[in-house]
């Protein structure tokens, strides 16, 4: 399996490490009263059969964290972009 890194190009799976569900955003600034939001962020993740957004890090390369859209049934990779929004305009 290969993952296209927007910085390095297509690279083999062994250069990457999986980082989990990328559909949730950290409830930045939310306090203890919003425990529900925190629990949702940390623990409640869908086990998607189909297209899913995941974090992957190119640890054996540029070390960028990526948001990869992958079909969990076929392992087809539909999209791969920098996690850092400011970098996305530089994307190859």
């Amino acid at each position, binding site marked *: 399996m290969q993952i296209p890194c927007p910085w390095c190009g297509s690279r083999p799976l062994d250069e990457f490490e999986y980082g989990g569900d990328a559909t949730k955003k950290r409830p930045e*600034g939310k306090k203890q009263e919003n425990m529900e939001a925190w629990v949702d962020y940390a623990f409640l993740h869908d086990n998607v059969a189909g297209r899913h957004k995941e974090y992957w890090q190119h640890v054996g390369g540029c070390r960028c964290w990526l948001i990869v859209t992958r079909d969990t049934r076929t*392992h087809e990779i539909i999209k791969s972009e920098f996690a*850092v929004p400011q970098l996305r305009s530089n994307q190859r």
Partner: protein
Amino acid sequence: MSGQSHRLPSGGRIDRSKTVRFSFDGRSYEGHPGDTLASGLIANGVHLTGRSFKYHRPRGITTSGSEEPNALVTTGEGGRTEPNVPATMVELHDGLVARSQNRWPSLSFDLMAVNSLLKPFFPAGFYYKTFMWPRSFWYRLYEPAIRRAAGLGTIADQPDPDVYEHSYAHCDVLVVGAGPAGLMAAQAAARAGARVVLADERAVPGGHLAGEAIEVDGRDSAAWAQGICDELDGLENVQMLLRTSVFGRYDGLTFGAVERVGDHLGNDSSGDLRQRRWTIQTRQFVCATGAIERPLVFGDNDRPGIMLAGSARHYVNQYGVLPGRKVVVATNNDDSYLTARDLARAGADVTLIDSRREKDVTGHALLPGETEVRYGQCVTQTCGKLHVSSARLADISEPDHIRSELPCDLICTSGGWNPTIHLLSHCGARPKWDSAISAFAMAKVENGVHMVGGAAGTFELQKCLQEGVAAGVAAASACSRKARKPAAPKTEKLPEYRIQPLWRLPDTISKASASFVDFQNDVTIADLELADREGFGHAEHAKRYTTLGMATDQGKLSNVNAIGVLSELRGTPIAETGTTTYRPLYTPAALGTLAGQRQGAEFRATRHSAMHQWHEKNGAVFTEAGLWLRPYYYPREGEDFAAAVKREVLNARSAVGMVDVSTLGKIELKGPDSGQFLDRLYINSFSKMKTGRARYGVMLREDGMVFDDGTVTRLADDHYFITVTTANASGVMQHMEFCHQVHWPDLDVQFCSVTEVWAAMAVAGPKARDVLSRVVDGIDLSNEAFPLQSVADARIGDAFVRVLRISFSGELAYEIYTPADCGLGVWEAIMEAGAEDGISAYGTEAMTVMRTEKGHVAGPELDGRTTADDLGLGRMMSQRKDYIGRWLSQRSGLTGAGRSQLVGLKPITNSDTFRMGAHLVTEPGTIGPDVSQGHVTTSVYSPACDHFIGLALLQDGRSRTGERVYVASPLHNEQVEAEVTGPVFVDPDGERMRG
């Protein structure tokens, strides 16, 4: 020596000018370069090569390729012993040694063949049903007995002296299969300038053309194939991988393959490369894997001398051997007419039995006039002992009635051809039943995949060539390589391939004799009938019930026949009977090849610190810490582990010691927001810490559990240096990168792992300052000028050093960081300077003893289930800032009563010991998850206390100081009474480290 009785006087693509000698079951034989073990044995009249798995029936060479189910042999001797190798894939070389398998005491007289007489008692599912009760009998009695009786070869019991390696290839177009279609595809893609890899499992190119006597482009087919191969081999953009089995296709057009580099050379010096595992990454894949013939299923269809029809002519044409002189060809399709023709031309007396009516047949035009053909007939049963001796024939309309019995020494059988679609479906695509060819084929393929020739269900040679050219051009142009479309060469016109399936004969025949569907696992039609009767009639169920298709050949000959049989038994169309799932590996690969160089000491990398040489020279015993080798202790003359560790601890506590801490993870941060970034990562704050100071810090995971701890040092306003635990070094770095890139990309901070850049050592003990004052230039080390938690840059000799005054041991201590290439020199300089104060090195065990005496937590306490408060670090948790894990650490379950908290333990009786992992209970003699109140995380002998001490996690432990508990390890039959204490055993006020 009987000589090569079955070698034809001329013909074949072997080198008759040379002779090679080989042995089989201790007898020596002769063959020629270009032979396989199978063709060499047949040339010498040897068909019987093994005994079957379950019934120990005599079996012989059935095919000429990697699909061989019966002729599995053991090759080599000593460490080179390799079991279960198909004789059809072993190239003959001088000195080759091969043995048959699964027979005792000898191949022709096998005592276990008595299983065959007991066949009615050994139906499918027998082992499961009969031997289940009583349970203990299964392990002690039945299982070992069955293992002895039913088995394949035995693996080597000595280390393998050969070398294996891994290699990687990247290409535009990967073509698997160097048959007519594959060669054309590779040629067209290569001529267009694409980078091409062409792989084929055989030693010679041409695929089935290597074994045909037909013309391509006006030439002999094998010579034509060799010509294309030579052209491709000369091109820079083509890599030819013959003798290479592509065993699997993985996601994203990644392929695994094994190249047999040295097997055919017969090397016997150690250190030679034997096999190479390839990982091939391609942009386009041309599947030209051809087709595999399936046998007909009739009574006693497994005797030596019964062979696939295509393979029989392969032996004649490629190897110049005639597998039999009195031949029955039994078929249901037109391809077998080529076999009848080629065997008749080679001088055999051939009778062709075709189950179809004459008007449905196209192949008869090929036959020499004198060949006898019987239409509408079939072979129902065979006779013979160690070799087939006759075939019983019947009309297809009345198979129960034997019409005649034909004496023969070879039966060529063909039930049709199955496209080899394994590599097309390894990634999950399912094939569809194609009734035109009566076989499973792929209806469509994914982007970037092309199927051509036999693999695509195309059995007409001219079309195969054309498909190859078209696929090569398409694949190259998909990689932006411009191609002119060359014309495919012309071939001799062959009759159209037609087939009428013939899955099985009536029940009466399968009841009277064994009709084998799966040779390698001895599965018969009767077994499939039983599976169906018991409700396991779907292909996927029947497979598991009978073990059909689960042998090393993965059912290459048997799967489709089984589905055909089941479909008739169930009265359902084949499409509804199901197909089996194709999974890698296509053919078996040796574990040594998959491991490659990664074995023994090279299994994984080993990391040494800059001071490793010194540790070795000074007798260190090493321990593994991740990839690192660290000094565990340094025994002196006559010392055991305990004595050495005790001496090292006492010396550090009373004088001075030094420990190598280079393995700590080290990260440097720069940028105006560095302090803020660290504030968000750690539970305590660092943005307000003064430059030149260092402090202990703790990180949580987002779920509130402790992740890691270490020191944070501020080197300048916008410059920090942190250390993290050895075990978590890479994990913390990834975590920081995640937090920065995903959560807070706006923070202006850059950071970099510098673990390997710095060597590090800790100097600890009451004499530490005296020792360092003698060698460190540039710092006043006095307590006033350089108190606890100070940091400054200095020199030792010519080396730059960074000195941190922090203490893990509880003693007056300094950590010295120096560039890795200065590490050894600095270490030695300190050792020299400390000699007069009795400095000695200590290892990781002495370090553990001292940190336990001080109640400092480490790996065993940071087990991913403990909160900062559990570990007594709750006061460090800032209330004034947000940080990773802050809010989820406040969940009620993590803050309420009943949490396991860090405590100390000491035995009531000083001489008692307890071990890590032991449980804490309040009543003696009880143990179990319901009564356990905690466990021992660390236990050591404390020289300072002169008894064992422990750290433990105990329910509500902090409020239970002074209580008595029992430390129980029922596994070791141990139970000791202990008192709960605070976690700090030595110098609770920390006066020593501040001194």
